[in-house]
């Protein structure tokens, strides 16, 4: 009874995403995240630390480093050790990644698995949620995913790899980039039979996709209700490496070509002059220098031109856009530049990521991951107010929930970009005026500064949230 009570008490601090694996769990204490390693995982943990695998992975920036600490375990009866993993500045999820981010996460998982085999270990799971982006690159965060490898043992995480990585990548590459959103519905990866139905027939002509997706789905269906002793199935190391090679080459061959979606060439399609553009940059940079925020969220960032103003100042910046093509370009550009402070993500602000999974708590909603110290909302309000009919007061309310400081641009109805949005619909927005904008935002924010952008009708504001 005492034990049950203790477990229950401990679970109040236990993070809601960490309950499946009996090897340990994450918990929060005094605003720091720790991981309890349970006795049942002792042998594997010791092997990870003593075999040299941990050092090799951390040395290659593939695994998040941790420190062993001497604090009281929340559930001491089953505890072996407590570790404090290095903090990931912003948690993101696979349904928010662009094609190349998911592809890089898949390749990182395979690289880790290959390295683990060299040290006599193997990944016990290959969930895409085990990967996060730190300093711009994918990194594995689940220290307890490694189990000792025994000769002849197949890869237990093969199904999960196909469902979490291969299936969404194949659908994005062969069918439509927007199908990544299926990952938000299916928390344990895409069902392979569904993936098989959606993929074009020609994917059956490629051995890798035929075997890892189509035949895999048929095999799952065939053996679904048949009791087979999986432990009887043996696979030599040669075959194991063959599977890893095959998965790696399949992932590498999957490509997505940018098809010129709506906003992909947005910055070549602006209605203001290069002088106005430069002036806008100078004003935003000036506001950032004045505020010096600890973190920045750039909402509606497109390819991240203005996010770069923040990231170049060493500020960790998350760069959101609804267009997967813009996010893809943003990601590839910052990789090429070697930028480490920017994280581009696909987010539809009219329907931001919800809390999903068990009790709606396993994966956090966008709002739960805030507030950011400063939010950039440039050329955004007219999209929300006119294309999505959100009243200005509710835009101000939402932005005040997710930011301390706000750098926001107002574009009047007379601007040709707004006219373009109104071209296909009736103007039912008599309240969309600069005066109404200032009035509504003043209910939630204090306007510290405003500046008109040269050679345009646009205005930039610097505001801070009113204390509640």
């Amino acid at each position, binding site marked *: 009874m005492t034990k049950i009570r203790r477990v229950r008490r401990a679970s109040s601090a236990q993070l809601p995403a960490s309950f499946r694996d009996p090897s340990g769990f994450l918990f929060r204490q005094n605003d720091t995240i720790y991981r309890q390693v349970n006795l049942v995982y002792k042998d594997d943990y010791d092997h990870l630390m003593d075999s040299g695998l941990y050092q090799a992975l951390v040395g290659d920036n593939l695994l998040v480093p941790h420190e062993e600490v001497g604090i009281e375990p929340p559930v001491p009866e089953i505890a072996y050790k407590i570790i404090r993993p290095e903090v990931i500045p912003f948690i993101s999820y696979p349904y928010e990644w662009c094609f190349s981010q998911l592809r890089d996460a898949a390749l990182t998982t395979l690289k880790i698995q290959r390295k683990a085999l060299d040290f006599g270990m193997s990944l*016990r799971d290959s969930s895409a949620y085990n990967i996060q982006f730190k300093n711009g690159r994918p990194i594995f965060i689940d220290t307890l995913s490694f189990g000792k490898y025994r000769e002849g043992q197949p890869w237990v995480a093969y199904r999960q790899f196909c469902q979490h990585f291969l299936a969404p990548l194949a659908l994005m590459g062969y069918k439509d980039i927007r199908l990544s959103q299926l990952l938000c519905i299916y928390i344990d990866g895409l069902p392979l039979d569904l993936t098989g139905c959606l993929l074009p027939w020609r994917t059956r002509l490629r051995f890798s996709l035929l075997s890892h997706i189509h035949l895999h789905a048929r095999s799952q269906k065939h053996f*679904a209700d*048949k009791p087979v002793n999986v432990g009887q199935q*043996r*696979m030599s190391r*040669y075959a194991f490496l063959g599977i890893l090679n095959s998965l790696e080459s399949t992932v590498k061959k999957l490509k997505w070509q940018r098809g010129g979606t709506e906003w992909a060439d947005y910055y070549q399609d602006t209605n203001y002059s290069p002088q106005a553009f430069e002036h806008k940059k100078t004003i935003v940079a000036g506001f950032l220098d004045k505020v010096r925020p600890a973190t920045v969220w750039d909402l509606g960032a497109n390819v991240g031109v203005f996010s770069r103003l923040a990231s170049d100042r060493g500020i960790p910046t998350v760069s959101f856009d609804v267009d997967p093509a813009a996010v893809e370009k943003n990601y590839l550009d910052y990789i090429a530049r070697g930028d480490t402070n920017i994280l581009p993500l696909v987010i539809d602000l009219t329907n931001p990521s919800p809390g999903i999974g068990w009790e709606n708590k396993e994966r956090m909603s966008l709002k739960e991951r805030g507030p950011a110290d400063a939010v950039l909302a440039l050329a955004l309000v007219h999209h929300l107010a006119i294309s999505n009919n959100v009243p200005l007061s509710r835009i101000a309310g939402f932005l005040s929930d997710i930011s301390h400081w706000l750098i926001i641009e107002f574009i009047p109805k007379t601007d040709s970009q707004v006219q373009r949005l109104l071209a296909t619909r009736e103007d039912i927005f008599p309240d969309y005026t600069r005066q109404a904008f200032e009035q509504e935002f003043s209910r939630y924010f204090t306007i510290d500064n405003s500046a008109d952008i040269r050679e345009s009708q646009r205005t930039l504001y610097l505001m801070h949230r009113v204390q509640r």
Partner: protein
Amino acid sequence: MNRLKHLGVTLAVVISLFLIFSQTVYASIDAGTFDQAARAYYIDPGTGSIIIQVLIGAFVGGLALIGVYRMRVKNFLTNLFTGRKQDKESDENKESEESE
């Protein structure tokens, strides 16, 4: 000449098939060392997924093995040929040195 070619192709196919299927044979030799009871996996690996994985593994692992063996045979033959040639050359050199 044609008969020789056919024989070569048939031999290659037979060897390939042997190597592919022998993978499962190799693997089954390891059966004694695999202690299933001790490994309690917290995720369901999926019966169908394990079975298809073992089959694909046998196939791609077999292909990789063929690649390795092909290289070995090729290297062996190349060494044999160039080795003989070198031997021949060194013999000739010796002879010419002696005649001088």
